[in-house]
């Protein structure tokens, strides 16, 4: 196989291999919450809502040294073509946890002992990359809520489609079956120290390729970060 040309040379939607889909971000979309944001890339949209810090119940879960960050991710039943049953699934629980770990690496709740900060992520429409869109929205929403954060987090899904590395994979690329198939690598990068806060991988890849993936991911996250900062600076859209 080595040396052979990749079967995936041109992207289905005409993008360059390092090109992110058009991004739209909004803040203040849920007026009753403490912070909220939406983040959209192409056919994928995530809403993130922050409620808290508020007293954590039941009491035995409270931590007298710090507040607790809790993330709940879910897809709306009509977000994909096969209806998703409402309520938690194994998939959504795992994604909630990895996103929670990623956000916990930058959020500092030591000033709010015995409280919880809830982050709710919902996906109204999906075309791959929902967890990274959710993480991008959550990062904006936490900043919008004024929760102390050391850095922002930006995330992107890099894919290996046959032998070609591309950023911000869409569903069609994710489902590519020819040649070496498709490998999906969601990753999240912190804004200042440029550390990796989330990394998952599904498929096959060589260590060299993985280094390239991380490099491409970090570069794409810069584009994401620009959008995140811009929406936070330009003030509230639909907010009070």
């Amino acid at each position, binding site marked *: 196989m080595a040396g052979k040309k990749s079967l995936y040379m041109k992207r289905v939607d005409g993008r360059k291999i390092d090109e992110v889909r058009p991004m739209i971000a909004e803040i203040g979309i849920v*007026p*009753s919450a403490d912070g909220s944001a939406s983040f959209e890339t192409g056919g994928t949209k995530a809403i993130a809502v922050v409620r808290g810090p508020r007293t954590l119940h039941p009491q035995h879960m409270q931590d007298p040294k710090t507040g607790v960050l809790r993330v709940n991710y879910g897809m709306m039943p009509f977000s994909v073509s096969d209806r998703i049953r409402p309520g938690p699934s194994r998939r959504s629980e795992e994604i909630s946890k990895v996103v929670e770990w990623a956000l916990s690496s930058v959020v500092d709740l030591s000033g709010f002992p015995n409280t919880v900060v809830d982050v709710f992520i919902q996906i109204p429409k999906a075309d791959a990359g929902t967890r990274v869109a959710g993480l991008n929205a959550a990062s904006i929403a936490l900043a919008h809520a004024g929760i102390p954060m050391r850095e922002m987090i930006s995330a992107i899904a890099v894919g290996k489609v046959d032998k070609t590395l591309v950023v911000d994979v869409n569903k069609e690329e994710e489902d590519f079956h020819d040649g070496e198939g498709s490998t999906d690598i969601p990753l999240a990068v912190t804004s200042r120290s440029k550390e990796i806060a989330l990394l998952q991988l599904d498929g096959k890849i060589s260590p060299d390729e993985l280094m390239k993936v991380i490099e491409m991911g970090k570069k794409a996250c810069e584009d994401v970060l620009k959008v995140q900062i811009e929406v936070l600076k330009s003030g509230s859209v639909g907010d009070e």
Partner: protein
Amino acid sequence: MSDYVMPNLQKEKIIECLKEGKRLDGRGVGDYREIVVERGISKNAAASVKVKFGKTEVYAGVHLAVAVPYPDSPDEGTFMTSAELHPMASNEFDIGRPGIESVELARVIDRGIRESGFIDFKKLCIKEGEKVWQVFVDIVAINDDGNLLDVAGLAALIAIGNAKMPIYDSENGVVEKGFTEDSIPLNKDALSFNMTFHKVGDVIVADVGGEEELISDFRLSVAIGDNKGEPRITAMQKGKSGAISSKDMENILKLIEDKWVELFPKIKEYVFG
């Protein structure tokens, strides 16, 4: 802000104002908030819509799947409404099993649509006793500022009114990707929509905001359709512990007629337009 409890002062203020026929946001007692409708929020569904009354916001979507009919109606499609009063919409909602509020809301909306005959279930039969279309309506609350029931009910109607039938490969019995140009079979004349009235203090008000809803004595939801240009009630549900006096009922019926004349043409436009 997160643990908001309404002060008594605010409650008194709301009730005082209502005595003069005014509401804190400047509306009259029968006025609805501005209604905003945005269709097509997810291209993957047969239909999807976002509906806002003021700050109360709901998403709804429709999916169709092939299912086995119920034994007692072998030639009719089936219908299911689910509602998620998601904790992102309000501090009052919790994660996990649907609470009584979501169950009631989903059931009232489900019943209203099912019993009105709006969907032509006979035409949703593929093969009698074996295969029928199953219609799912899924509702997700995004922000609760009162009157979720009416907002969710309208969102469900618009989603159904705009839904397209999937492409069905009858030879192999599989649903393919994409949608046809055909709508779900509907009896358009049977359209009825929900209006909920609350008694706040001594006054009957339409389209309550969040604070009004918190302090109301009772609510009465009424689904109303068209009977040759006259309003016809097709479903009702009373909620909360207060009781309805005959004067209250008179006021509500009068409001229903006024509001029906004003809103029904708009609702039709949203659902079929």
